[in-house]
Structure formats: structure tokens, C-alpha cells
């Protein structure tokens, strides 16, 4: 993290450029309704990236399996809509609840050990869930995905249209609300405590911070956010499949956060936009082998150095 390109100084109020960003996102709904499904996907993945930022950027927990919560949220929301109640908000709440629980249960695993241990353990959890979803394909639909999910209308009146316009507004609103909440949290004493833990866990303990308790709390919170993102995906696409639990999801969101810069929340949004642009560009070039170029980008970025990339992108975004 650079000394010169500082993140916005904390304050209750949003700064002008932030307001511009959100108004701009909303404006897209009016200006380019044809692209609503694309914006919807960006909003969802941005929420996923923000959730990862909470643990990686702010708390220093490296996770290679964050898709575990994303996928859980997706499946729970889809199954809930299919078998219980198609109301989206109730489904969202249930999905978030289950993801939160999962986060709480698995948080114990990331408290101990080195970065390598954490990488492996989080990877392992995601793989276990993937296998579970795969094996119990009578429930989850396995590799084909869960069919027959129909999300009901919002508030009973606003049905999700095929054009994705309702979907985008829905996802954008959820993203905005959760983002505001996260923004508050990271600027509050709790958030600073997390940063202290990230920078120097021994020192944090020496000033009285209960490190494990705080990390458990933020890991659970991040799981909730990721679950919400997954639920949004399932609800707005009426579909859930193993793809939501797949390793590439965890890797892609890491890349998005690298592109946007971790530790300043907006990095998740910026990075997701950048990633999506890249992904679509590469897919247009080589529909089947775009993964190669993504890999190349990762390699090059890492050779350059995460800090320099984040500084660069942040400067470009904020100055504009």
C-alpha cells in the first residue's frame, strides 16, 4: 500500500467522487437498459469482491476458497425459491443466514496457522462443498445445475423481467446498502482494529485486541456478504450450478481485487469492472481459451507487483 495514493480519509459523509460513482451506476439503468444483465452481473461480482476485501484487504486473511460462501448463497437461494417460497427478499435473508452460519463454523479454521495453512484450509473447504454439491446431485442438479427455479416478484409487484432491468436495480440496491454498511464498519474502531491485526497481530494483541474474536466476526460477516452475492446471482438468473462453487470463482475474485487494489472497498468495484472488461475482451478474441490471457495478466501483474498496479489504477480512477 503506497504512502502517496492514500485511501479516502474516513468520515461519515460520502465524498463527491463516491456519490458520482453510485449515481453513475444508477444512471446506467436509464441510459443503457440493454446492458442491464451485464451491469447486474458486475454488481453481483462487485459485492463478492467487497466481501473478499473485508477479510483479505482489511484483515489479512488469505482465502483461496471464498467461492464456498458465494456458492452456498446461490444454492440456498435457488433451492429456497424452488421448494419453499419464491419471494426474493425472504430467500435472500435465508441464503445470507446459511452463509453466515457456514462462515462462523469455518472461521475457526482460518484463525490458526500461517498464510499457507489458510490458503489450503480455505481451498479445502471450497472443494468439500463442491464435492458435496456434486455428489448430492439429486438435490442440487449436479453438473447440469438446478433447474426450475423461478424467483417471484419483488414486494409482490415487481416481477423480474427478461431484460434484467428489475434484476439490476435489485442487485444494485443490495450492493449499495451492504457497501454503506461495510464502509461504516471499516472506518469504525472495529475496522481499525482489523487493520491493526492485519499489520501486526502481536502488537494488536498487546494493546488488548482479542484477535481471534475479531477475525471470527469479520470472517463471518464476509461470508454473509459473499452469500448475499451468490443469492443475488441465483435469483436474478433463476439458476444455480456447480460453477458458483468452482475454484475459478475464488481465483477470479482474487484477481479482481488485485486489479482494483485491496484495502479500500472501492477496489472491489473497480477491480470487478476491470476484470469484466478484460474477460469480455479476451472472450471476444478467443472464445474458448480466454483463460490463457487471464492467466497471463495474473503473471504479468504479479511480476510488476500488486502495490504498483493498485497505485496506478487507483490514481486513474480517483483523479478522473
Amino acid at each position: 500500500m503506497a504512502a502517496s495514493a492514500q485511501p479516502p480519509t474516513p468520515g461519515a459523509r460520502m465524498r463527491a467522487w463516491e456519490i458520482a460513482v453510485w449515481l453513475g451506476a444508477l444512471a446506467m439503468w436509464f441510459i443503457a437498459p440493454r446492458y442491464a444483465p451485464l451491469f447486474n452481473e458486475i454488481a453481483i461480482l462487485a459485492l463478492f469482491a467487497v466481501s473478499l476485501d473485508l477479510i483479505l484487504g482489511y484483515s489479512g486473511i488469505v482465502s483461496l476458497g471464498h467461492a464456498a460462501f458465494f456458492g452456498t448463497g446461490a444454492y440456498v437461494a435457488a433451492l429456497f425459491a424452488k421448494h419453499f417460497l419464491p419471494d426474493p427478499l425472504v430467500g435472500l435473508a435465508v441464503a445470507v443466514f446459511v452463509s453466515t452460519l457456514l462462515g462462523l463454523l469455518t472461521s475457526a479454521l482460518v484463525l490458526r496457522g500461517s498464510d499457507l495453512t489458510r490458503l489450503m484450509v480455505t481451498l479445502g473447504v471450497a472443494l468439500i462443498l463442491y464435492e458435496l454439491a456434486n455428489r448430492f446431485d439429486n438435490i442440487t442438479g449436479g453438473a447440469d445445475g438446478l433447474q426450475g427455479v423461478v424467483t417471484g416478484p419483488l414486494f409482490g409487484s415487481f416481477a423480474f423481467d427478461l431484460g434484467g432491468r428489475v434484476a439490476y436495480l435489485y442487485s444494485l440496491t443490495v450492493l449499495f446498502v451492504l457497501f454503506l454498511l461495510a464502509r461504516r464498519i471499516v472506518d469504525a474502531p472495529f475496522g481499525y482494529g482489523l487493520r491493526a491485526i492485519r499489520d501486526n497481530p502481536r502488537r494488536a494483541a498487546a494493546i488488548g485486541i482479542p484477535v481471534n474474536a475479531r477475525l471470527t466476526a469479520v470472517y463471518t460477516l464476509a461470508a454473509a456478504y459473499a452469500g448475499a452475492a451468490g443469492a443475488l446471482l441465483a435469483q436474478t438468473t433463476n439458476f444455480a450450478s456447480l460453477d458458483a462453487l468452482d475454484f475459478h470463482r475464488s481465483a477470479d475474485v482474487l484477481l479482481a481485487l488485485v486489479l482494483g487494489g485491496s484495502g479500500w472497498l472501492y477496489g472491489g468495484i473497480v477491480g470487478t469492472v476491470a476484470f469484466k472488461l478484460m474477460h469480455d475482451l479476451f472472450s471476444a478474441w478467443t472464445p474458448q481459451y480466454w483463460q490463457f490471457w487471464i492467466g497471463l495478466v495474473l503473471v504479468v501483474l504479479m511480476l510488476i507487483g500488486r502495490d504498483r498496479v493498485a497505485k496506478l489504477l487507483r490514481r486513474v480512477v480517483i483523479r478522473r
Partner: protein
Amino acid sequence: MLTILFDGIAYGMLLFMLACGLAVTLGLMNFVNLAHGAFAMAGGYLTAVLTNRLGVPFLASLPLAFLFAAALGAILEPTLYRRLYRRPHLDQVLFSIGLVFMAIAAVDYFFGAQQQFVRLPAFLKSRFEVGGIGIGAYRLFIIAVCGVLTIALQLTLLHTRFGSRLRAAVDDPRVAAGLGIDVNRIFLSTFAVGSGLAGLGGALGAEILGLDPTFPLKFMLYFLLVVAVGGTTTITGPLLASLLLGVADVAGKYYVPKLGAFIIYCVMIAVLMVRPQGLFARIGAR
């Protein structure tokens, strides 16, 4: 049941061959190389091409697989990997994931996504009974080859000057450098040999583990598991871990097919919870 034990041991030896390079890389350069499986894949595909398309005998293709993968390692280590040794583990992980993506896509492009098969010589395809235990010739071959190599590795490590220099560099690279040991050369040769062994493992394992473009990702966790459980400071640690894992996996899949894969994952999580530094690591080791 003893057949399962035998198969498990074969599987474990194979895993060891594949993973020991990773263990040394982690122990020596403190580098998390998730792309290690890509080197294995390279060796495997080379063998498939040699035996299927070029008619090279299987036994001859094995050393070639080793050399090919070792050469790849020898090229990539000084040009790319070495720049990232001091970086945080996350950067290394992301870098290696990038390499994996590139490798997978490239292999998919050139060879397609289907399984690759290796033409085995007839004598390796037979099975025979010894005292009631069904023994596959191929698995016996694997155990033999890997066993010999393991002994060679251990002897090299313990009884040669290169071995002692390597051990010194693993213990403390700075002090080793201060003693005049050319740490860079050791890194290079170790990485190359580790990659070569992975390539050999990929070639040997094509028949048992399956070979397709997703190989590096599919087995990534297994390699990491061996390293995490076995530690990175000895040869015997990862060896025991591999054998344990091999037997557990084979037995699990046989006796409890529905849950076979989970056992491995749960074992890993359990081990890491209890001893985050690995079951067999020395106390005080990294």
C-alpha cells in the same frame, strides 16, 4: 484388502514423486508454487505424445519426461520465479495460478480436453497373484521406480556435498550464502530436479491418475496436502504423508465410495487444525 494396501502404496509413492518437488521448493525458497502440477502435466503429455504419436517405447520416454519438465523448470526459475521469492505468499499464489491457467488453456488448445492415454509395454500390463494378493505389474513398477529414486534422493541429501549445501540453504539461506554457498545455483538445480520429478510422476501417473488439461487443478490440493502434512524440512516427512494419503484415499474410495474424496479433505483440515506446521515437521521448522 492387502491389494488395496498395495495399490495405496503405489498411489502414495506416485504422489510423493509428484509432490516432493513442491515440498523442497516451499522449504527452500519459501515459495508457494501452485503451478507445480503443470510441470507434471508437461511430463505426462510429452510421454503421451512420444508413445502414441512417435512410437517411442514407454520406458525410454520416462527419462525424457523428466528432462523435459526439468528443462522447463530450469528456464522458468531464474526468469520468473526468482523475482517473487521475497513477495508475500498471496502474490506467489496468484502468480502460480496465472501460470496454471496459461498451462491449462495452452494444453487444451494443442491437445483438446479429452483424456490422454499412454501406450504401455505389454509386460507392464499384466497382473499376478502373490500369496493371495493381486498385484498389478504397473503398480509394482511404480513402487520400484519411485522407491529407487527416493532412496537416491535421500542418499544425495545426506551423503553428498550438494546435499549438505542444500540442507544448509534450507535451514538458513542467508547464513548459507555467507558461507560461500551459491544459493542461486542450488535454487535453480533444486527447482529443476523437483520439476523433473514432477514430470516423471506425471508420465508414470497418466495411466493411474488420468491425464487431461485440468490435471494441475485437480491434484493441486493433494500436493499441498502432502506438503502440509509432511512438512518441508525432510524427505521422510512428505514420503510418509504421501503413503498415508495414498492408502487413505484408495481405501476410502473402495470402502465408502460416496464419501471417498471427503475423507482426504477432512483429514487435511483435521491435521492442519491440530498441528498447523504439519505432522512430521521438526519442531521449530518453518
